[in-house]
Structures are given as C-alpha cells and as structure tokens.
C-alpha cells in the first residue's frame, strides 16, 4: 500500500517562504521576516521527518517511494515528469538538508540582526532550501538538474549578497560561471543518457541497467562517457580539482551562507549525484578510477593550501574542499555508503566550525584575520568549547564523528583495487595535515596572548578594512568589512543565545554522529552501512571488484575474523596516530613557540609563497582562459570579423557603386568634340564587330 506522502510539500514550503519574504519582505519588520522564514523551514523539516518516519525500513512501505505530480516537459519521444523519489539515500540527505538548514536559519536570525537587506537574505536562504530539496528529492536527472542550477543561482545571490562590494559581486559571478561549466558537462551526460535509455527517470534508467542487458565490457565506452560527464559536473558543484576555484572566493558571502551552502548542503550535491548514479559508475571502472584520483589529489592539494591561510574562513573553505576530496575518494572506490556517511558527519562538524568562526568574528567585531586573534578562550567560553569539539571531530580523533567516517573511507580505500596503499597513504597524510591546520586555527584563535579586545583594534580593523561605507538599502547602519557589523565597541563578548543554541546542538551531533557507523572490528555493527545497503546494492556490483566490495561489507557486517580485525585495527591506529602527530606539531608551532613557524617559512620562502598564493591557480586560469578569450572576442571577433570583414563588405559595396557612378559622369562633359569622339568610337566598334562576324561565319 503506497501511502501518498505528498513529498512535493517539502520543497514547496521554503519556496512559499521565499516568495512571501521576497515580495512583501520590504514592508515586514525583521522579526516578522525571520518568523516567516523559520516557520516554513521548520514545517518543511517536520514534514520531511514525518515522511521519513512513515517510510522507515521497518514500516512495510516499499522503497524507493516514487510520487509523480505531472509532466513537466514532453516533446516527441521524451518526457520528464515532476516526480519525487524517496529512498534511504535521499532520506539521509533530506534530513541533513532540512535539519542543518533549520539550525542555520536560527543562527542567522541573530547573526544578520544588524545587516541591511534582512528580508532579502532570508528570501534567498529559503529559495536555496527549495532548490536543494528539489535536487535531493527529484526522481529524474532533469528535475535534479533544476535543483542543481537552482542552488547555483542561490549561491550566486547569497555570495553576492553584499553587492556593494565589487569583490563579493565578482565572487558570486565566478561561482555561477564555474558551476555553469560543470553543468555543461552534466547536460552532456544527460543527453547521452537520453540517447541510450530514452528517458531520464531513475527507475527507468537503473531498471534497464539492473535488467542486466549490459555487461561492463560491452557498453563500457558509453558508460564511461556518461560517468565522466556526470563526474565532471560533480567536480563543478563539489569544488574538486579543476573547478574548485570558486569555493575559497565564496567566503565573501555572509558566514551562515558559507556554513549552509559551502559546507553542509550544496557542495555535497555532487557526492549525492555520484552516489545516486552508482549503477552507472559501477559499470565504468575507468571512470571510478578517475574519480578516486581526482578526490585524492583534491584532498592533499587543498590541505596543503589550508596550511598557509591566515583568514579563518579561507582555512575552513580549503578544509571543506579537502574533506570533499575524501568523499570523492570514497565514491571513487565504490564505497558510496562510506562517502555518504562522511558527508553527513562532515555536514555537522563543518557547519559547526563555520558557525563557530562566525560567532568568533561576530565577537571580535568583524575581524577575520587569525593573526589578530588570540586568547579568546576565556572571553567566549561556549564558542570555545563548541569549536574544540568540532576541531577534534574533524581531526578524526576516535570517539568523535570524524574518526569513524574518515576511517571508514580509508579502510575502503586500502582494500579497493582502485585505491590501494599509495592512495591510502596520501589519505592518511591528508588526515594529518587536516588535524594540523585545524589545531593551528584552534591555537591561533583561542590561545596565546589577548591581542584583541582593546578598543583601538576594533577601530583599526574598522577603518582599515571597511571600504564600503555607502548607505546600504533601508538600513541606515554603516557597514563593517566583509560581512560583520562592528558590534558595539565594548570589546569581545559572547554571542547571544540564539546563535549559541544551534552551535551546541551541532556540537552534540558532531560528537554523537559517528556512532551510527561504528565498524564491526570496534564492536559496533555499522547501522548506516546496512541502512544504505539496499540502495547501493540495487545496481550491478562494481566490475571486477565484486568480491572485495562484498567482503568489505561482509567483513564489516560479517564475523569479525581475527586477521581481519587486526588489519582494520592497524589501519584505524595509523589514522589516529596521524591526527595526533598533526595535533602535536600544531601545539609545537603555535602554542609553545609561536616564532617557530616564521623561522620555517623564512627558510622555505619559495614554497611558502607558492602555497600562500594558492599555487597561483586563479591567476593561471585568468591568464589561460579569461584574458585571451576577452582579447579574442574584442580584437578578432568584434572589431575584426564583425566590423571589419562583414561591415566592410557591405559598406564597400555602397561606396563602390558611388565610385563607378562618378566615373561615368565624366562622359557627359558637354564638350561637343568628345561626343563626336564617342560617336566615332561607337561607329568603329560596330564596323569591327560586323567584320568579325563576317570573318567568323
């Protein structure tokens, strides 16, 4: 008995919230705006929870649960419905999106209290929720593409929220265009799917694959093509190596935006898409190999860049890119459930870190540079403890969530043919680097002497960094640098409870989150793995690696054979060790002898500058793609072809006819003798012609 869950209500509620705030928000007071926003997000979360609860595996309702509302596009042989698809994977995603989203909404009420354009912010936030939920709940690739581009639009609007600042507007535009490049590849992937499966609906596509018509060898060309296109689309959205450049710049947006979009939900869309189309990826072993490699490169690459950053949000941004690299790596080795598990835990502690950083910035009046912070431990205790939990979680130290999900991935990588010890080694190294830069952030912000707190610094930060003084919209309030208002100059103080409550909840989740997936050899029975099993096993097993995938899960779920556990324990041990080493170095560099890092950086100046300037990738992209493109289109295309060639021809025809006319005018010179001459010539010509006729005939 399929109960009609009206899944379409979940995405619709935030859309209504966005519409109300968008259209009438100008006239509402802030309280009313936040009330509308929170109400609709909460309702959506409630409905989602209810839907998940009713469809929970034990409830007898067959999963995946599909509801179609009506056809959206139909032409010729192709049609795409408004369809919604609920199965274990989308259950997790919908809960994470609405849950974390709701917490961040609460947080932003406090955070954005003094910002201008309050209604605009919440309208965009709700709009983002609508698109993200459409993406997660869609039952076909086209509707997912709607969500896909929609979140791109929402991130464009939210990153460019402080549009008075050119850097924010540029960052927003950069994000949208880079995402669009990814969407281009996704579009091609969809066309390939239409061409070979006739439809984009998941059940149709996966049904045909599951029907076993395809042996990996026979159709590998097509599947690799589709998988690669989808993968390239995912790199655009989840900021992987070639297309990650937009994420660090996206920090121009307000911090809650970074937390929601660039940590918890949007960037994970790519991972969700790959996990969702695992059936295709499983049949394209080469594509999986590439996914793994890209994931690994991104992880290590971003981690190194995170080391040198001084801006607190940039560090977190690079850490997000690095963690996404982990998830990509997990998907690359076909351990999709491990990827999703890490996605979930990452959503908790990364959102917490961003919000924590936000409350730190909020406390110190808009200051983002870590070098200017220090010794805030006692001034903002709650934030301190919450950020500590998150930092330990992300570093991957056992009882916390991060350890379990990261270890799950590293374990899967070690066993999988696509992973292998080399990539596993890089993974562990990245884990070490992660813990190093996270604790670096931790020490620099909360320990050391109190550089902050004095009024002058607030002033100096205010003056030095506050270019945008222009009155902003209705708010008469003058504008601090970046996103934060210079809170009252009374020095450092703890954020209001409305901001801290979500932090505490997230902290609990970061702590508890990991226990869902405790692996066998540690006594747990990895509930999340079993929970996702029906989804992940529905497609064909990964080509040529069927066994290990099975045994990876069986060894986890199955009996804890002695040599199996010993090996697993060894793996877990190394990753914990890496985390602790990172902690120690951070402690050494930034707590015991703060001058040490300067000495090291002065020695390895070249490398340090490289890393500081993010390997000059942005400038490289600019020089390779953007400038030549602009030059080409200005000089060659517009001036050259358009005005030069084509207009030249057209106007040339005009002037040519004038010239000929002018020449002919000479004949009518009015001089009788020239007329006589022309008559004579005419006569001669006729005579000559007649002679010629006579001769030739």
């Amino acid at each position: 008995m399929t109960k009609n869950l009206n899944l379409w209500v979940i995405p619709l509620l935030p859309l209504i919230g966005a519409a109300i705030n968008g259209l009438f928000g100008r006239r509402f007071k802030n309280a009313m705006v936040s009330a509308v926003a929170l109400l609709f997000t909460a309702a959506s979360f409630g409905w989602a929870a209810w839907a998940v609860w009713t469809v929970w595996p034990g409830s007898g309702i067959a999963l995946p649960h599909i509801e179609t509302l009506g056809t959206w596009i139909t032409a010729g042989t192709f049609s795409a419905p408004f369809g919604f698809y609920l199965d274990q994977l989308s259950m997790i995603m919908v809960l994470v999106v609405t849950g974390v989203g709701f917490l961040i909404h609460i947080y932003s009420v406090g955070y954005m209290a003094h910002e201008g354009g309050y209604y605009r912010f919440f309208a965009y936030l709700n709009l983002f929720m609508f698109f993200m939920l459409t993406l997660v709940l869609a039952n076909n690739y086209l509707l997912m593409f709607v969500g896909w581009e929609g979140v791109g639009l929402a991130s464009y609007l939210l990153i460019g929220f402080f549009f008075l600042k050119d850097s924010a507007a540029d960052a927003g535009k950069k994000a949208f265009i880079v995402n669009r490049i990814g969407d281009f590849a996704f579009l091609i992937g969809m066309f390939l799917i239409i061409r070979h499966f006739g439809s984009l609906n998941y059940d149709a596509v996966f049904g045909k694959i599951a029907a076993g018509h395809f042996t990996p060898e026979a159709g590998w060309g097509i599947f690799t093509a589709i998988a690669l296109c989808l993968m390239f689309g995912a790199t655009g959205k989840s900021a992987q190596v070639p297309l990650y450049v937009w994420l660090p710049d996206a920090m121009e947006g307000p911090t809650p935006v970074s937390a929601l979009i660039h940590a918890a939900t949007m960037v994970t869309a790519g991972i969700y898409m790959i996990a969702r189309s695992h059936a295709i990826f499983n049949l394209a072993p080469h594509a999986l190999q590439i996914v793994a490699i890209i994931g690994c490169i991104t992880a290590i690459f971003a981690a190194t860049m995170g080391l040198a950053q001084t801006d607190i949000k940039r560090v977190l941004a690079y850490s997000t890119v690095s963690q996404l690299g982990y998830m990509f790596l997990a998907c690359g080795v076909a351990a999709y459930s491990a990827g999703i598990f890490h996605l979930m835990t990452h959503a908790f502690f990364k959102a917490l870190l961003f919000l924590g950083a936000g409350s730190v910035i909020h406390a110190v009046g808009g200051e983002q540079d870590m070098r200017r912070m220090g010794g805030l431990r006692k001034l903002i205790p709650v934030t301190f403890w919450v950020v500590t939990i998150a930092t330990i979680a992300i570093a991957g130290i056992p009882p916390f969530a991060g350890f379990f999900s990261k270890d799950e991935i590293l374990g899967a990588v070690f066993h999988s043919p696509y992973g292998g010890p080399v990539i596993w080694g890089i993974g562990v190294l990245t884990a070490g680097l992660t813990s190093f830069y996270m604790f670096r952030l931790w020490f620099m912000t909360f320990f050391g002497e109190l550089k902050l707190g004095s009024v002058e610094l607030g002033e100096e930060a205010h003056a030095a960094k506050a270019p945008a003084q222009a009155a902003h919209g209705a708010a008469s309030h003058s504008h601090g640098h970046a996103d934060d208002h210079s809170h009252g100059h009374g020095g450092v103080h703890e954020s209001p409870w409305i901001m801290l409550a979500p932090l505490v909840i997230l902290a609990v989740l970061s702590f508890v989150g990991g226990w869902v997936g405790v692996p066998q050899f540690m006594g747990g029975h990895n509930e999340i793995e079993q929970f996702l099993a029906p989804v992940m096993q529905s497609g064909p097993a990964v080509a040529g690696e069927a066994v290990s995938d099975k045994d990876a899960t069986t060894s986890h779920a199955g009996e804890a054979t002695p040599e199996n556990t010993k090996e697993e324990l060894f793996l877990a041990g190394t990753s914990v060790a890496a985390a602790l080493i990172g902690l120690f170095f951070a402690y050494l560099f930034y707590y015991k002898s703060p001058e040490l890092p300067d000495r090291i950086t002065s020695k390895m100046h070249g490398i340090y500058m490289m890393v500081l300037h993010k390997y000059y990738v942005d400038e490289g992209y600019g020089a390779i793609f953007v400038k030549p493109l602009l030059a080409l289109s200005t000089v060659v295309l517009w001036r050259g072809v358009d005005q030069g060639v084509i207009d030249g021809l057209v106007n040339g025809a005009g002037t040519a006819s004038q010239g000929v006319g002018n020449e002919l005018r000479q004949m009518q010179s009015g001089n009788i003798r020239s007329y006589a001459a022309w008559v004579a010539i005419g006569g001669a010509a006729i005579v000559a012609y007649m002679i010629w006729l006579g001769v030739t005939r």
Partner: protein
Amino acid sequence: MVHQVLFIVFGLICVAGAINLLVQRHPISSALSLVVVMASLALIYLLLGAEFVAAIQVIVYAGAIMVLFVFVIMLLNAGAEERTRGSRMALIVGVPGVIILAGTVGWMLVSGSGRLGGVNLVGPSSFGETHAIARLLFKEFLLPFEITSVLILIAIMGAVVLGKREN
C-alpha cells in the same frame, strides 16, 4: 587600261581635295576644296557609267549645297580657326579611332578583293540611262520618294524657323 589611269587621276584629285579640306585653316578655302572633291567624284561616277547621278552630283551637291555653305561662311564672316590647344581628348581618341577604322576597312577590302572581282568601264548609255533610273524610282522606290519630299518640306520649314531673327 584607260579606265584605270582615269580612275587613278580623279581618285588622287579627290583625295587631295579632301586632305586640303582638313589642312586649310580658313573655312572658305576648305569649302572650295570640297567643291573640287565633289567635281572629281562626279567624273568618277561618269567612269562608272552613272551619267544621271554625275549630273545630279554636280547640280545638287556642288551647285546647291556648296553654294549654301559658301553663302553661310560669307554671311557669318567666319574668321580663321584659332589654334586652340583645345581638347587633346579628340586627338587621343580621334586619331587612333580613325586609324583603326581605316585599317580595318582597308584590310577588309584588300583581303576581300580577290573574291570581289573587278568592275569594268561601261560604254555610254548602255546602263545608267535616266529612263531606267526614272522607271525604277517611280515604281519600286515610290514610297521612299514621297517620304523624301515630305522630309525636304520639313527641312525647309525648320530652316526658315531657325533662321528667322526674333524682332
């Protein structure tokens, strides 16, 4: 044989007159040289047995038209031509034009002369008698004859109108 000698003599006179027409600066002398040309032509017509035409030539052309010309020259008291360096255009276009014309016609005639064959001196009154011409004129060519009369009438009226001095 006689025919050739006479032909050459009168031909040369004719050409000399024509050249003189060009060379002379004063119109009256070129008019007179034209009269010489016309007379020599009349004689050539006689050579070809066209007595009536020769007579008409002398009477109409030499007698009437040339007299008219001389009369007008006298009337207008036209002086000698000025040496205007004038349009060199005529030189540039005229001379080569004429050369081409003469050249082609000449080449044509010379190359074609073989096929044409000769014409011989015709005895008196065996060919171009007036009555034959008259019969021809008033039978086959009656219509052109009437038209030419109308033409003459119009010409006269034209001349009168143009010549009249508005007073």
